[in-house]
């Protein structure tokens, strides 16, 4: 019987699950698709309800996880196939070629600077607000802190044509442009899936002008703009003229609680993070005026209502109960006009602002159904992984020995993701010891 745990997804939830299991003496493989673990939380500035610095909380966990004697972090890797059954799974993992020897690389960054494509490739971590090289380290606190050469853009990898200054720049001889994908076959006892969420691209809601108007952005873009380690060094600026927006409107439930875009459920986190975002803008510059257009303010949780109240009283946030119908743009100033019905006093009104932030829906990752198929677990109608019984076994999947946790099961905040990560670790450990007891009486 195999007693290792496979954790898929190295966001805060997967990290927590791995740490809990590792501390209990279980051997864990943490498989992360991206070059670094950390997930969504690594990219956020502050987190509600404490407004603590997100990466400051997460980074120590990331490092502990990486250095943990019982945890093997396999980054830049994906599950190819899972066969067998609880206690005797075989997992085939594709460890993608990153063209850098992880053991030799010190993360000095010389190759990134030397790369002929420096400043040419939109940086996904920064939502495209900045450009990176083909050789890159995704963000400063990345774990593992090693370079990755992006096979989709690197001139040598794609066309075999490049003078390869990156290779010369690396004093450690870590770059290996001939590296190949590796297939690892692992014996696994139980699996935890913690692949997290993604956000809805609001372009199809044409009335809000996302993609058409420079100063309409979505909340993830906002998180990067206000983040001190983001593309603007934490200076919130408008795309159109790099000026600081003084009046900001946040539109809630964009593509969420919305039958037409296929997400009738509530994303449960955005009312809170829009309040957080408004507070941050105010903390940066206290002449900023923030307007939150909400359908219903959903702040269910201890201290959450108080958080909203503080937003109103201490940070001067104006909450307006309306889902705006349209945003129009002033051709010259690129300011935006938000058209809404004042549902409390009646009548169509409009509000001119410098920037609009769309609080866009949390949706399952596009590949969640494929992954579910590989794992033999079921999803709900939207593509979130389904629990076998959401009331009594919220982290058990439909298949024995596979657990699901965090935002890949339903929209949830960091606290809940961590709680679920812990719960999944607990269940995994329980099932492992039960099976062990049966195997060696």
């Amino acid at each position, binding site marked *: 019987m195999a007693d290792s745990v496979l954790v898929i997804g190295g966001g805060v939830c997967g990290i927590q699950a791995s740490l809990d299991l590792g501390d209990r003496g279980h051997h864990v493989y943490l498989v992360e698709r991206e070059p670094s673990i950390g997930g969504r939380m690594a990219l956020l500035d502050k987190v509600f309800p404490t407004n603590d610095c997100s990466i400051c909380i997460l980074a120590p966990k990331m490092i502990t996880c990486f250095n943990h004697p019982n945890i093997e972090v396999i980054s830049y890797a994906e599950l190819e196939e899972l066969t067998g059954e609880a206690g005797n799974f075989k997992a085939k993992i594709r460890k993608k070629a990153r063209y850098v020897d992880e053991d030799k690389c010190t993360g000095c960054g010389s190759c990134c600077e030397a790369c002929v494509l420096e400043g040419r490739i939109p940086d996904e971590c920064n939502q495209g607000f900045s450009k990176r090289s083909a050789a890159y380290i995704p963000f400063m606190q990345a774990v593992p802190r090693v370079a990755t050469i992006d096979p989709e853009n690197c001139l040598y990898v794609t066309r075999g044509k490049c003078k390869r200054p990156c290779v010369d720049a690396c004093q450690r001889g870590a770059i290996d442009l001939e590296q190949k994908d590796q297939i690892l076959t692992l014996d696994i006892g139980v699996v935890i899936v913690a692949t997290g969420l993604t956000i809805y691209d609001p372009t199809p809601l*044409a009335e809000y002008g996302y993609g058409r108007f420079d100063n309409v952005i979505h909340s993830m873009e906002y998180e990067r703009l206000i983040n001190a380690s983001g593309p603007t060094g934490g200076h919130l600026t408008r795309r159109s003229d790099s000026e600081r927006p003084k009046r900001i409107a946040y539109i809630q*439930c964009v593509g969420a*609680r919305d*039958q037409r875009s296929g997400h009738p459920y509530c994303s449960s986190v955005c009312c809170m993070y829009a309040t957080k975002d408004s507070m941050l803008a105010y903390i940066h510059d206290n002449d900023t005026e923030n307007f939150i257009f909400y*359908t219903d303010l959903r702040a269910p949780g201890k201290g959450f209502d108080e958080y909203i109240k503080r937003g109103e009283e201490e940070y001067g946030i104006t909450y307006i109960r309306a889902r*705006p119908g349209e945003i129009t743009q002033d051709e010259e100033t690129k300011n935006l006009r938000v*058209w809404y*019905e004042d549902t409390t006093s*009646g009548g*169509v009104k409009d509000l001119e602002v410098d920037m609009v932030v769309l609080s866009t829906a949390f949706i399952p990752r596009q590949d969640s159904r494929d992954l579910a198929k590989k794992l033999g677990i079921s999803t709900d109608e939207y593509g979130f992984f389904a629990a076998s019984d959401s009331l009594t076994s919220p982290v058990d999947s439909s298949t024995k020995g596979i657990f699901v946790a965090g935002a890949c099961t339903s929209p949830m905040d960091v606290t809940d993701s961590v709680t679920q990560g812990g719960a999944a670790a607990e269940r995994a450990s329980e099932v492992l010891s039960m099976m062990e007891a049966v195997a060696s009486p």
Partner: protein
Amino acid sequence: MKAGQVVIELNEPRIVAFTCNWCAYAGADYAGVSRISYPPNVRLIRVMCSGRVEPSFILRALEKGADGVMVGGCHEADCHYVSGNKKALEKVEETKKLLDLLGLGEERVRVKWINANEGEAFANEIKDFTETLKKLGPSPISLVKEPKEGSPKKDLGQIAGETDALLCVECGKCTASCPVSRRKPDFSPRLVVEELLEKLYPQIETSKELWDCLTCKTCEERCPYGVRFSEFVKEARVGIKELSNDGNPTRSGQIFSWMRIMSQDSLDQKRLGWAEGLAYKEVSSSPDDWLFFVGCLPHFEVSHSPIEATPLSIARNSISILNKMGIDPVLLPDERCCGHDLLFAGEADTFIKLANKNWQAFKEAGVKHIVTACPEGYYTLAREYPKVVDGWDIEVKHITEVVAEALDSGSVELDGDLLKETKVTFQDPCRLGRYMGIYEAPRKLLHAIGADLQEMEHYGSGSICCGVSSWVNCGVTAKNIQLSRLGEAKKTGASVLVTACPKCQIHFKCALHGKLPGDKENFEIPIEDITSLVARALGGGENG
């Protein structure tokens, strides 16, 4: 008996005479006091001036059972309002043209100038008219029935359920999207539903708001809960109409009258005069044949000539396009109105009658494919007919789709230099766009003729309606919508506003014909239907 209803038991012609207060009515009165006898077939309706008699009055009289209508006024220079009688003459001429199209014959309407002391002349005219009508025989439409009172109508609660209005969370996105609410602050789609559901029928009787909606579907396009408000309105209007709340129909209901008349059995319509010289046929000879559904264009041509709209050129250009594509379409000599406007104005039963008449005619002509240049007809045939006729199996397309498909397959080529470097802008018709989801086909055609398409601020699914729908409630709000739309078109710098719907064209031209606020330059832009451009790019066609 309802007021205004003419009931004559004898098998005699029934005449309604609209007579002016100052001359003709006084003349009739004089005949009476002088004891000059005249046939009892006439019922007099006194109006202050003959110029007040609209075509709608005459049509309404015919619809209600009159066999003939006379308009009596003062002699030429005697009009007490200077030129009312001249206007009367023009309106009667217009009516005659409409009657001609309907095949009712213009002899059923006449004008007579009669002085206050011309009792004899009045009596003679009535005698003569009675004789003429006897010879003509009873009007084929003398049996037009009013919608049955108490005919099955849906309960508002049921309508709200069926249109998902009960899912509304009162977020106001509909109101904030609605072109009417933007200009008429007391109108809010969500509140219309809410208030109607609260108060039910006492409210519906007075609900003007139900007529304010353009059924443009913008709110529906955006409502997060999929509330189908325009459908709610369409259904709820059936009930409201029965309570005689009719939403101020355009031209006091003239258009609805001839639409209702068109639902009659024994008409002998003469509606194909415009197609002379074009290649078409009246019966299908192969299952691949296309029928061109003309719609109300011949009638619109008559009633909208004062604003220089030329709806018939849309029909002619469409035929010319089809001919150039090697298609000789089928045209039906007895085609009826598609019924769209009646359906959306609460006369569902007349709509069903029209739909079934057309369905019968389509079957008899043996067609399986229909093309139309009118988005409303397109939507109605494609989406509403299958709901009310048995066994609908006909494919329906808009002319822009047919040409766009031919372009794709390479079976037709358009002159790519026709509008080389010309900036144009395009009005998405509600029925073509939001109702049928066709946005690309017309744009593809514009591109193919070399036009430089400049989109308006609102375009595609966010496009704004031309301001009036189903011929109701054309008022200040409608004008404001039209002007702001023309303003948007103008701002693009385009030299022509391309339309793809006869009504869009009519409504914009109408707005341009009225008083324009401030500088005309902000609004005035030539308007041309897409069929005219395409026909020209195929080496045929006429401006229109």
